[in-house]
């Protein structure tokens, strides 16, 4: 039987996984909520952030340059996000949905190929920044300090997003964009600008997740699609368009995995999908998704 301190550590491990998933999925769901676009290239933003961080803070020098690298990653990817919205997506809003999807789908390949040219195919790694690289003691068990940082970051991002969406002008504009873009335009708001900003925030969230998760993972081509699949599942469980839903979805997946690995390891890789299927049977629009009208 599992001792309870082990169970607590296991749940904390699940929350660590959930935190990254939430940050990535929140960007995906925000962009969908505001613009009804599923950005397949969202995982590319995540991967680029990790690669940029590895370029700045990888190798022997590592460590101390971590925060510089994180800043650089977030800024570069946010700019990239802006360019993608203005240069590509904006031209597709009046097109069929399939066209929009194909456009972002094409971007996945273009970004992947570019990354292969720039960074090569082999893996890189980044060290955990000094100060966050130790072990904390939880109920007599060791737990990585960095995992607490990741969990905290997830909470901070969630709180920040809630504040922006609920308490700022930009927030209500983004929400209004979902409800009625024509009315928003008639009210004198630059609708295009709001869309661009929402997209940039989405890219930025992918970048924060990619850069924050980079230490302690293998940074390599392919990490873009791996995270996209997981993040998409989280967003669908939560209800596409709902940031709170993404948080719920991430916690469900994280904890499902934590419990699954512990109690039914043989089936653990099926658990994520099982969770999605169960939720969609009960609520076809996801937990907090608004059913179609």
């Amino acid at each position, binding site marked *: 039987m599992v001792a309870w301190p082990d169970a607590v550590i296991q749940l*904390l491990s699940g929350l660590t996984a959930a935190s990254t998933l939430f940050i990535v999925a929140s960007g995906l769901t925000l962009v969908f909520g505001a613009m009804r676009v599923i950005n397949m290239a969202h995982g590319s933003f995540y991967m680029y952030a990790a690669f940029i961080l590895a370029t700045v803070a990888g190798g022997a020098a590592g460590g101390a340059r971590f925060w510089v690298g994180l800043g650089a990653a977030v800024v570069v990817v946010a700019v990239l996000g802006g360019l993608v919205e203005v240069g590509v997506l904006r031209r597709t*809003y009046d097109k069929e949905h399939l066209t929009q*999807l194909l456009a972002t789908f094409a971007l996945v390949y273009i970004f992947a190929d570019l990354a292969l040219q720039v960074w090569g195919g082999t893996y890189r790694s980044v060290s955990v920044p000094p100060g966050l690289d130790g072990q904390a003691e939880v109920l007599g068990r060791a737990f990585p300090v960095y995992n607490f940082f990741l969990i905290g970051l997830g909470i901070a991002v969630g709180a920040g997003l809630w504040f922006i969406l609920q308490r700022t002008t930009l927030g209500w504009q983004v929400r209004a964009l979902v409800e009625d873009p024509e009315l928003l335009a008639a009210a004198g708001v630059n609708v295009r600008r709001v869309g661009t900003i929402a997209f940039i925030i989405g890219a930025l969230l992918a970048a924060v997740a990619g850069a924050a998760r980079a230490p302690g993972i293998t940074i390599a081509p392919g990490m873009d699609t791996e995270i996209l*699949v997981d993040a998409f599942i989280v967003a669908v469980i939560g209800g596409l368009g709902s940031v709170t839903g993404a948080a719920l979805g991430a916690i469900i997946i994280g904890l499902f995995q934590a419990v699954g690995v512990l109690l039914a390891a043989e089936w653990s890789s099926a658990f994520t999908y099982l969770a999605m299927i169960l939720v969609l049977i009960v609520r076809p629009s996801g937990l907090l998704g608004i059913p179609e009208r």
Partner: protein
Amino acid sequence: MGGPKRAYSRREVLRLGLAGTGLVAAGGWLAACQPAPGAPAPTTGGGPSFEGSVTVGISTTLSGSIASLGQSGLQGVQLAIADLNAKGGVLKKEVKLVYADDAAKPDQGATNVRNMILNDQVVALFGPVSSAVAAAETGIAAQYRKPIFFHTSNDLVLTTKQFHKYAFQVVPNTYMEPRAIAEYLSRQPFRKFYTISPDYNYGRDSVDVFLNAMKDFGANIEVLGQQWPKLGTTDFSTYISAALAAKPDFVVMFIYGGDLLTFTKQAKGYGFFEQVKSGGPWDLTLLPALKGEAPAGHVAWSRGPFFAIDTPEVKDFVSRYRAKYNEWPTEWSLLAYTAVQVWAWGVQKAGSFDGDPVADALAGATVPTIRGSITIRKCDHQAEIPEYIGTIAASPHPEYGFPILENVFVAHPERILLSCDEAQKLQPR
């Protein structure tokens, strides 16, 4: 009007999204799949004169978490071919190489190999990293009667259930490697085991064989738990804490490449390597990447570490590889190099590049290579080569700059090979 259009229902969008995500997940990388980007072997200026040329191909993993193994193997093949050409080629023909990335996806590997056979007219193929890809390729090689040499992926099925006359395995297979590990560990005091292995053929088979072999070698062990993370797992937190919660005294890991690198880094924060002993394929792509972070004293195995194979030819190979690529060779480059040597020897012996005579010449032959003579069994075309197991040194090797394996135990092929009788029972009639 640039505002978002809302003509599409949520359900449709969801369906599109699911389909798209599925495509991305399952489809090969368009980006990485230019069919066999022509990469002719270095042309020999002013060297020996050739009477025409032949082409060989390698489709392997050059992007993603196991790409370092593929890249390293490719470099071994390239060096071997350069060496062949420097000595006048094979049957006086210059050997050219085409290669392609399979991104660790079976369908991509199959496409690459078919392209190489049909478009590049390759006369022989060298294998991929993942055994899942190998399984997809071997049938195509059989169909077109092209010899295929597996030197990194090592699934036993390639010499048993999927065996055919054109398939050769010059790497310790998934029966030999886990048995070798069992032979080594059965002599150690560990009895409470935990396994972490990737969720596909190689991972499942390796654990199976390992546990059975422990019994064969007389070790009465208890298995406290087993984990099957998928290839390319990025967050091992839950696996690490679950393994520790079971309180084993030894964790056997068959996760490899970037996955094992990720695991090693994440496990550190949990004090994993202080709480349990573990063993895993910390190979010559990982030890240089981890350097001081490599878990000293833990058990590592290798299918061909150059520092443990003491022949003048291997020493020469190491220094020339180092000079050419500015890095130390890995077991993958060494194995790939010998695979090319085996093929070239078969062609010389047969006096032909055709699949049938080459395969006939190699079956049961003893072939001279840089690591000494190796025998290819007639019954299943498995090379009789050992597996190497040791503990990770506490400090970097003065010459190589990374920790190597100490107290290396060499598991001899005769103790770890599947018997010919058993192999043939599993082969298709």
